[in-house]
């Protein structure tokens, strides 16, 4: 019942190794009190906080890139709480890279002022620690804590524009729905952990595959409730209603954080949950897959249809986020290691293009004070830099050939097509139909989305408006960030190999099933 001396000894023996794998998170954890103390002890005039935060994130990124990991599987750390593997690592690197771009962007667009810069960076870094834990959670307790650690700072970020009524309303809606969603997810966790007598997902997976036939109804209900919580984080359709409102009310920079970083980590967590709790060849696997596919398809279609006719650009981008989340969810319908390369590629491309789109929105807002779509009328004349980069991001979000969005979408489509073909002759023919349907739906949706993405481009280049408006200037740093992002979009669209190889490396984390099979064999022997 209580940990015995031998267990404690093992934990202490592994501690050094575990901590060395955990260095990036530790650095971020240390940065938070350091930033707050700096503000407390010194005048913020003498010590600017942004470079400190940037340096910390950069160091964390270097350590994350140098992490030494086995090629197959991963390293189980902290007594089974976390699993550090290449899949989790690639998403963690993406999250840190996002922070590295988002912190200077926040400074340039002047979201935090001198007084509350420490708060802004603390909240961003704190939420990112939660997101990084989400990508490597292996225990249901860790799933819950990581989701909460990511959510609670996000609530505060949504309301960061103090004194603005829409921002407060956004925070209110996010907090209230988020609390209910985490309660629901936790009820699911209690049912699953209670039925199997443990929260360790590897053990649960072993018990599921040992049962072979069917898991109990309460455990299945628990699994569904857990996925409900994840769908809320992903803003998938039955739980998407918070997303447009929060994005409209919160600052564009916060919207970028919620749509890029939060989505990436939630997808990684969803992949792990499907891998562990979905089971293979068990009766509930098929039910889960069908349900997941339907939700993904509906999410994508709903997002794309609702994005038409939006007048606020942040609201339009929110629906576009919902649509992209649906497309990314499609890869996870029946999760196996083949889904990892397209997923990783999509996350990286989405980071560049969506952060870029939100950055342009933030720069336009700073100069005009408006986030309506008609502000973009004739932007090409007012600021060619902004208009050109926005065009690149929009075309990439749509998925046109030489850009990152095309490469990512192509890989997802290829994955869907391959699976439709692979399951055709298998015993579960329904999956083939499922994948064919998803493929068709995704193709139709891409055509649909052209309407509103190209609409923005048309506004910028063709609609000049009645009177000539003052030109907009972009700060030098802003030009640098935009060109880095545009460069990323073009590079990811042109050179697929480096990132695809990373994705294949990451996929190897799931290719070994030895632990699962060992457990199965062990339990059969008993």
């Amino acid at each position, binding site marked *: *019942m*209580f940990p015995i001396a031998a267990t404690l000894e093992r934990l202490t023996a592994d501690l050094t190794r575990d901590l060395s794998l955990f260095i990036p998170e530790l650095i971020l954890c240390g940065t938070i009190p350091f930033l707050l103390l700096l503000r407390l002890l010194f005048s913020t005039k003498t010590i*600017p*906080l*942004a470079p400190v935060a940037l340096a910390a994130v950069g160091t964390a990124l270097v350590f994350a890139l140098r992490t030494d990991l086995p090629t197959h599987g991963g390293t189980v750390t902290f007594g089974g709480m976390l699993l550090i593997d290449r899949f989790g690592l690639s998403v963690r690197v993406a999250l840190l890279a996002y922070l590295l771009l988002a912190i200077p962007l926040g*400074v340039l667009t*002047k979201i*935090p*002022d*001198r007084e509350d*810069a420490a708060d802004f960076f603390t909240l961003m870094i704190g939420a990112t620690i939660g997101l990084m834990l989400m990508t490597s959670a292996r225990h249901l*307790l860790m799933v*819950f*804590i990581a989701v*909460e650690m990511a959510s*609670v700072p996000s*609530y*505060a970020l949504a*309301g960061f524009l103090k004194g603005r*009524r*829409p921002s*407060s*309303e*956004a*925070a*209110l*809606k996010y*907090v*209230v729905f988020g*609390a*209910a969603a*985490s*309660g*629901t997810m*936790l*009820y699911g*966790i*209690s*049912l699953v*952990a*209670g039925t199997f*007598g*443990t*929260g360790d997902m590897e053990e649960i997976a072993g018990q599921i595959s040992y049962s072979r036939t069917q898991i109990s109804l309460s455990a299945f209900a628990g699994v569904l409730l857990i996925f409900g919580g994840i769908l809320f984080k992903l803003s998938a359709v039955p739980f998407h209603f918070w997303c*447009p*409102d929060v994005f*409209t*009310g919160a600052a564009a920079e916060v919207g970028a954080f919620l749509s890029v970083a939060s989505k990436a980590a939630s997808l990684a967590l969803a992949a792990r949950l499907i891998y562990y709790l979905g089971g293979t060849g068990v009766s509930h696997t098929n039910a889960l897959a069908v349900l997941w596919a339907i939700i993904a398809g509906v999410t994508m279609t709903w997002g794309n249809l609702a994005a038409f*006719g*939006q*007048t*606020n650009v942040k609201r339009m981008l929110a629906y576009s986020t919902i649509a992209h989340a649906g497309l990314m969810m499609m890869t996870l319908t029946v999760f196996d290691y083949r889904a990892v390369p397209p997923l990783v590629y999509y996350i990286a491309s989405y980071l560049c293009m969506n952060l870029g789109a939100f950055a342009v929105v933030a720069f336009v807002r700073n100069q005009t004070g408006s986030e309506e779509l008609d502000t973009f009328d004739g932007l090409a004349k007012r600021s060619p830099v902004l208009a050109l980069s926005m065009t690149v991001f929009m075309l990439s979000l749509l998925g046109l050939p030489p850009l990152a969005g095309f490469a990512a979408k192509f890989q997802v489509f290829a994955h869907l097509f391959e699976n439709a073909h692979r399951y055709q002759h298998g015993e579960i023919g329904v999956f083939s139909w499922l994948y064919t349907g998803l493929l068709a739906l995704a193709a139709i949706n891409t055509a649909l989305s052209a309407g509103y993405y190209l609409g923005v481009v048309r506004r910028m280049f063709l609609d000049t408006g009645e009177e000539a408006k003052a030109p907009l200037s972009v700060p030098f740093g802003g030009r640098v960030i935009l060109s880095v992002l545009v460069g990323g979009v073009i590079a990811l669209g042109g050179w697929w190999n480096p990132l695809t190889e990373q994705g294949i490396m990451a996929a190897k984390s799931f290719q070994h099933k030895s632990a699962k099979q060992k457990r199965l064999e062990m339990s059969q022997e008993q």
Partner: protein
Amino acid sequence: MITISHYLAVGAVLFTLGLIGFLTRRNLIVMFLSAEMMLQGVAINFVAFSRHHGNMHGQVFTLFIIAVAACEAGIALALFLSLYRKKRTLDVSVWQDLREAGIDETTDAQPLTTTPEDADPILTKAGIAPKRPLEETNV
């Protein structure tokens, strides 16, 4: 004889009551209270399962639930306070500026009655007010 199913039933009832309260109430604080009640239902589940399996996993879960619930309550109540300062009401239906274009505001047939209150008390000033130069918003 009280078995595990009795505990689970209590947990389920608490959770459902919380969910219903969350969906139907209009007062911000009561809504959040209901959401917290859902968590308490879960905590009962965990403790019952912990006893049932004879291990400490459920107890650990419960401790973390309590800690996280406190964090959430902290941030939510601080937010509600600032919202109340703006509109002088806890009615959630006054907060619907953000909505789909072309959809009318939902109006209640029976609006939440609020008792008119005194303004926030003004504390007597003490000491010299610190000088706070106006700065341009920049980092």
